[in-house]
């Protein structure tokens, strides 16, 4: 993929922790590799502790990766001084889950939006103010909102401000870390529609981090499923929903509540609790919850191609112990 805007190679982030007085290493992100093509929306899906947010923070170097390489537009992000990162930061931005926590309560919306514009010397004075008006309009707010403070806005409006702030520097890549999880259903739909429109209008690439498979289905071109610090499956969105190969992906899909009471059915509810990657064993991390686990799953297992553009990290799939997924499980 020569038009890759982001390349992540064998990214590792370890934290040294103490658990009950014992030293241990938490492998928050453990050998994550993927690429994002220009204009694509890639969803990074997983449960809490799967390492999806840490991956995003490492890409931005808001967390320092332990090992691995991140390249943006062919340029190294890892291994550079913070000062030399500044021009890159202009082109990669992030929107966080909780807009209330990520806005300064003492700063007006206008000041919040002007800061990145001036910091990156994109415009000053009247030109900067005009740009603020433009940004507000872009995210569906009015120019008058520039004078407001966060507490005078609803949750949805605050998230629009956060999106406008991320767009202030004309980025090419925007990382979205659960941007609608703190919002009400009706407002979530507004924000998802806005993100969709923005992508069409101004040529954006998204890395969308979420635990919500409905959001994934709706927005993503391609999906990466993370479990305990590793990518366990990667596929185009339609493929992932129609033919989920990894037992964990199947468990995730089976866990999504039905759309309507008439669709209630008996499903295999996934057992057990998510794996915590503290000093992990070499084998498959999902084996403890997997209905098809066998002895061979204790050996190390890599992410490998199962079909064109479809990667899976599962020994049992390749040894044909894990059966083909049942279609009716996902049919609407």
């Amino acid at each position, binding site marked *: 993929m020569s038009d890759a805007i982001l390349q992540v190679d064998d990214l590792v982030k370890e934290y040294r922790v103490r658990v009950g007085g014992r030293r241990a290493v938490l492998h928050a992100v453990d050998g994550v590799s993927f690429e994002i093509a220009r204009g694509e929306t890639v969803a990074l899906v997983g*449960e809490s502790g799967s390492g999806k947010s840490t991956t995003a923070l490492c890409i931005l170097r808001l967390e320092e990766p332990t090992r691995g390489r991140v390249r943006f537009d062919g340029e190294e992000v890892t291994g550079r001084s913070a000062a030399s990162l500044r021009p890159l930061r202009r082109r990669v931005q992030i929107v966080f889950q909780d807009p209330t926590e990520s806005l300064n309560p003492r700063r007006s919306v206008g000041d919040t939006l002007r800061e990145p514009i001036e910091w990156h010397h994109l415009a000053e004075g009247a030109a900067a103010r005009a740009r603020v008006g433009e940004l507000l309009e872009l995210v569906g707010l009015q120019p008058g909102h520039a004078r407001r403070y966060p507490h005078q806005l609803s949750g949805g409006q605050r998230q629009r401000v956060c999106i406008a702030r991320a767009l202030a520097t004309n980025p090419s890549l925007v990382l979205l870390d659960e941007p609608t999880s703190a919002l*009400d259903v009706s407002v979530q*739909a507004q924000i998802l529609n806005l993100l969709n429109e923005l992508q069409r209008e101004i040529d954006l690439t998204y890395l969308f981090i979420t635990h919500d498979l*409905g959001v994934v289905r709706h927005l993503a071109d391609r999906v990466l499923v993370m479990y305990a610090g590793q990518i366990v499956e990667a596929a185009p969105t339609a493929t992932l929903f129609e033919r989920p190969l990894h037992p964990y992906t199947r468990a995730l899909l089976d*866990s999504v509540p039905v759309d309507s009471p008439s669709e209630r059915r008996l499903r295999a509810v996934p057992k057990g*609790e*998510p794996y915590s990657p503290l000093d992990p064993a070499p084998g498959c991390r999902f084996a403890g919850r997997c209905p098809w686990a066998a002895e061979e799953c204790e050996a190390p297992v890599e992410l490998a191609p199962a079909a064109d553009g479809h990667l899976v990290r599962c020994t049992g799939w390749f040894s044909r112990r894990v059966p083909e997924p049942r279609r009716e499980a996902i049919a*609407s």
Partner: protein
Amino acid sequence: MTAEPLLQVRGLATWFETPRGIAKVLDGLDLDVGRGEIVGLVGESGSGKSVTAYSVVRLVRPPGSVVAGRVLFEGRDLLSLPEGQMRHVRGKEISMIFQDPRGYLDPVARVGNVLNEIYRTHEQASRKEAKARALELLRAVGLPAPERVYRAYPHELSGGMAQRAMIALALACSPKLLIADEPTTALDVTIQIQIVRLLAELRTQLDLSILLITHNLSVVAEVCDRVAVMYAGEVVENGAAREIFESPRHPYTVGLLRARPRIGTVEEKLADIPGRVPDLLELPAGCRFHPRCFLADDRCRHEAPGLRPLMPDHVSRCHYAERVQEDAA
């Protein structure tokens, strides 16, 4: 379920004093929970669904207070009980679980000790008997290693295990009604479905009635028999779950159902509900939903609709409930 409902809320009004005036968070709410039923109370933030729960068990704190209405539980009005008797009702007859179990479990008490204490004080059980019953209950809520959880402190439990422990505590005295306030919202997807299933199983095994408060319509679709949809302090629609999902009769319900990104369907654009939830101090005249409604006309702007029966078991607070379906299409 023709017998008298276990819980009948009638004309409940709970107001909060604020520096800007009185916020009528609830103002004339009616709600029933039948015996053995799971009733979903659905709404967005600020709709008054949690305040409803707190009002039922009389745990609304100042600046809020229940100013009118009746909460009939097995025919008795809880709002007129002396506090001493009410305390007996809470826990023994009605108990509650919350979104964040670890915030409600005593951080310095082992789970087993709390359960023991409940059995020893409320049921005068012997030490040995209390422990046996505690372990049995921990097993009943699906905890894989009850002995370990019995000795554990809350911080040693994962989110899902803590919620199961919380459910065990809530069920210790065999209450008739369990009020579950967003019990799965803080949990991971695979754990959420486990807890939802557990509630459904407990209902059957223990003959329990459940009032499930949630913003997640799909959780409702998974387990509820009946649904009450709340908007800006009012119930706007109430009926059998199947009815509500298949032929919703209030524009807000229609909007909520369509705004969900679902895994079974892919739309180019999600149907969002324009605008935002109104400020309870500046409620719009007429129907509270009219500024966001695709059906609104002059009548809606001036005349507040009442809850109207459309079928024996389906009510809607919309002047045009009969038209909602066609016009939404």
